[in-house]
């Protein structure tokens, strides 16, 4: 294929990637508005944060096609992949500890049962150490 054809192919691929990223951002908006509780909304919010962003950045890189800019875009994607789990962990932990997680909507809740087990074990240990208290 000639260089011109390759340019067209890259432009079409970039358009597809940009459309995919924009659609994921739209889906996140719908999800965050419609979902019932904090964890479900977090689930909707992560879609454009990682996959959508990477799609948009691939689209942009295919369109720019210059070395320096593309490395900066790789940097953005790496930053986002490093920071998104940390932010999600902080939000989820704060939500669990301030009681914003609806347990009736959860399929599996290992944290609560583990905490109860740990509490029981702690109590047993205290009673073993101080018998007769």
């Amino acid at each position, binding site marked *: 294929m000639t260089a011109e054809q390759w340019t067209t192919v890259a432009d079409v691929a*970039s358009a597809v990637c940009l459309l995919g990223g924009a659609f994921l951002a739209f889906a996140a908006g719908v999800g965050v508005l419609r979902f019932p509780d904090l964890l479900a909304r977090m689930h909707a919010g992560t879609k454009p944060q990682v996959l959508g962003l990477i799609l948009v950045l691939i*689209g942009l890189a295919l*369109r720019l096609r210059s070395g*320096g800019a593309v490395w900066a875009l790789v940097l953005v994607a790496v930053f986002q992949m490093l920071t998104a789990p940390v932010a999600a962990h902080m939000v989820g932990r704060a939500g669990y500890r301030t009681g914003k997680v609806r347990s009736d909507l959860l399929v599996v809740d290992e944290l609560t049962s583990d905490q109860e087990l740990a509490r029981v074990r702690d109590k047993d240990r205290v009673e073993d150490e101080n018998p007769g208290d």
Partner: protein
Amino acid sequence: MTAVVVVCGVLLTIGAALAVVRAEKGPSMLDRTIALDIVVTTMIAAVAVYAAVNRRADVVPILVVLSLVGFVGSVTIARFASVEPEGEGRVRTREEIAAQEAERIDGEDWAEESRRSGRREGTDEHHGGGAEGEVR
């Protein structure tokens, strides 16, 4: 390319608008954090679409900055602002404001009085310590 831009713009605008609606409705601070995270991500996507359409490589640093700002914001709110005292999000009535104001002035008068009479309150003094409303 024009059609792609229009479709992308419409999708991003609607997505951001819906996230802003969620940020307004709440009901908790953490829901607002998530909604504003989505708004920031949508902004990154919008800047990227703009750069792609006009082939402008010079706006790429903006993307780096935006991706870091979103992280700092959500972590700060999750750590320090997620505990909301009961009834803080409500608009108070005039009577309630007057009562609280009178209470505050009384408290200040009392503190001034006790300071004048030379009683030092060692228990009330604290230097630093944990931030109020912090999630541990």
